[in-house]
């Protein structure tokens, strides 16, 4: 079953004097349980594509279906709610809420979903244990290393039980040990729980782990390789 379906996606930026074709007719589908990396040089359209998939930006042309829903037809408030219930985000700079503890950060998204307190606490603790941070639940982000913060971000992304997780350069700010650790955790979650992960990355270590590698150049897919 296709989790994500993208047809003839185009994005033209008119903000500068020169028109920029950030995406130039992208067709793409992701199935449940994929562990995919979108790669390409800077300016190839990786981030633009990820923003479109996450409903954070609108394409100039094309269609995006997530779990069968055409997200471009949703009103902005319905799209926010759709993101909350269907998409998990992991950002390059972790982007945790600095005034909340690790546990509260993971709980927060479930509170937005109005999950009962007891249930969300149990799930948040379980997720933090899964990412190896069961002993750091009460630490604020400033007391955690970059790798640990990114693991909290992964736990947060999974807390909402999304259809898939979008991770924008998740290892860009991590050292090799933290990167390996994070990738192992995400791969394990992917294999055990069949969670779909889509990364944009420059990092060869991520590319090596991915079972599908999509290469973008000048806003077009130039290769889409699936490893066995």
């Amino acid at each position, binding site marked *: 079953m296709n989790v994500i379906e993208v047809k003839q996606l185009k994005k033209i930026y008119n903000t500068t004097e020169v028109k920029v074709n950030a995406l130039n007719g992208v067709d793409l589908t992701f199935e449940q349980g994929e562990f995919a990396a979108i790669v390409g040089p800077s300016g190839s359209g990786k*981030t633009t594509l990820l*923003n479109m998939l*996450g409903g*954070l*930006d609108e394409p100039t042309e094309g269609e995006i279906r997530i779990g069968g829903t055409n997200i471009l037809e949703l009103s902005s*408030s319905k799209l*926010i*709610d759709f*993101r*909350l*219930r269907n998409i998990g*985000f992991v*950002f390059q*700079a972790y*982007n945790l*809420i*600095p*005034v*909340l503890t690790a546990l*509260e950060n993971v*709980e*927060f*998204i479930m*509170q*937005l*979903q109005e999950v009962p307190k007891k249930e969300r606490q149990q799930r948040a603790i379980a997720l933090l244990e899964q990412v190896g941070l069961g002993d750091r639940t009460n630490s604020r982000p400033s007391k955690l290393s970059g790798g640990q913060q990114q693991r909290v971000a992964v736990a*947060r992304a999974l807390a*909402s039980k999304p259809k898939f997780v979008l991770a924008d350069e998740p290892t860009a700010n991590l050292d090799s040990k933290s990167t390996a650790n994070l990738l192992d955790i995400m791969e394990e979650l992917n294999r055990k729980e069949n969670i779909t992960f889509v990364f944009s990355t420059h990092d060869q270590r991520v590319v090596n782990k991915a079972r599908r590698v999509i290469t973008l150049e000048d806003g077009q897919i130039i290769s889409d390789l699936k490893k066995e």
Partner: protein
Amino acid sequence: MLLAIAWRNIWRSRTRSLVILIAITLGLASGIFYMAFYKGMLDQRINSAIKTEASHIQIHHAKYLTNPDKKFVITSTDSVVQAIRAEENVKAVSSRLIVNTMIQSPTTGSGVKVTGIDPTMEAQVTNLHSKLIDGSYFEEDRRNPIIIGEKLAEKLKVKLKSKLVITVQDMAGNITGAAFKVVGIYETSNTSFDEKNVFVRQTDLSRLLAIGENTSHEIAVLLTQNEQLNPVARKLRSELSNLSVKTWREIMPEVSLLESSFGLTMYIFIGIILLALLFGIVNTMLMAVLERTKELGMLMAIGMNRVRVFAMIMLETVMLSLFGGLCGIILGWLLNLYFGATGIDLGAWSAAYKSMGFDTLVYTRLSWSISLQVAIMVMVTGIIASIYPALKALRLKPGEAIRIDM
């Protein structure tokens, strides 16, 4: 959790939050202290107007107030006094004879209002007896004693035991006069009152005016509490329909105006302080929003809707304002309690204040209800101040905001 986030966010930039909190605290504390000062001054003025000058209610002949001629008397004063005393909430009653005339000292003269009183009845209604700074309050059973104000004593260049001559036209139209001996000199907080009012025994003035017994020009009524003013006045008006029944608010409209304008004046004053603080709060919150562009972008990206983002910024602003506001109200109250006990001496401006009837030692006064109203005004200010920063946050595009380098 939004409450916890809002509260913790306030303390993320401690210095900035403290600066605006101190500004709110000091602004409101000074505003509240000024309110307490003004209210204290006003209450003292009203108290003085009631206790020294007008009492709560005055009863006259129907025509007396428009034409204060001595011929417009209240006949059967005793029965009227009895009827008034029978009313609920009436504490004391005193009948008076009044004549506006000239008083002469050996060196000069002055126009005065001579009030003939029954010292015992009058002492229950007004506090003249407690305002004496020299002499005594009609204690000796001597003929024609007079009590005058200090300001008049200065003007007439007389002192205790000096003789003063009062010249009047009696009820038959004959010019007559009598010498009075100064037995007491009083001083109230109103120098104009002190200069214009002298007090003699009702029996002495009655004899001088050759006026019949059981008559008076004025009956002063003291109530158990000011709140009963209008109900009692209404009742007396219906019972004494042939007489004029006036409350102190009608007799002294200038004092009544001060009382009624207090609320409005104070709201405008506090409003100006809050308006100035509003811009400070908006500035602080705008900085907080700009600093957190990335974080707000992330919150919107993961699914925090506009209402919640707006509520979070609003909560933060209201909490900041309310916390500062409460500190200001508490500080204002502490100042109010301190100066309510010790008083503030306005000695340097005493002449100006006393000429308008204000005490120069002001005891601050403030009610809790006013503090509550101020707290509500602060909360409203916080809500208004949050609108622009919150709208600014809502305009962020999550996809762009997340990537902004801070």
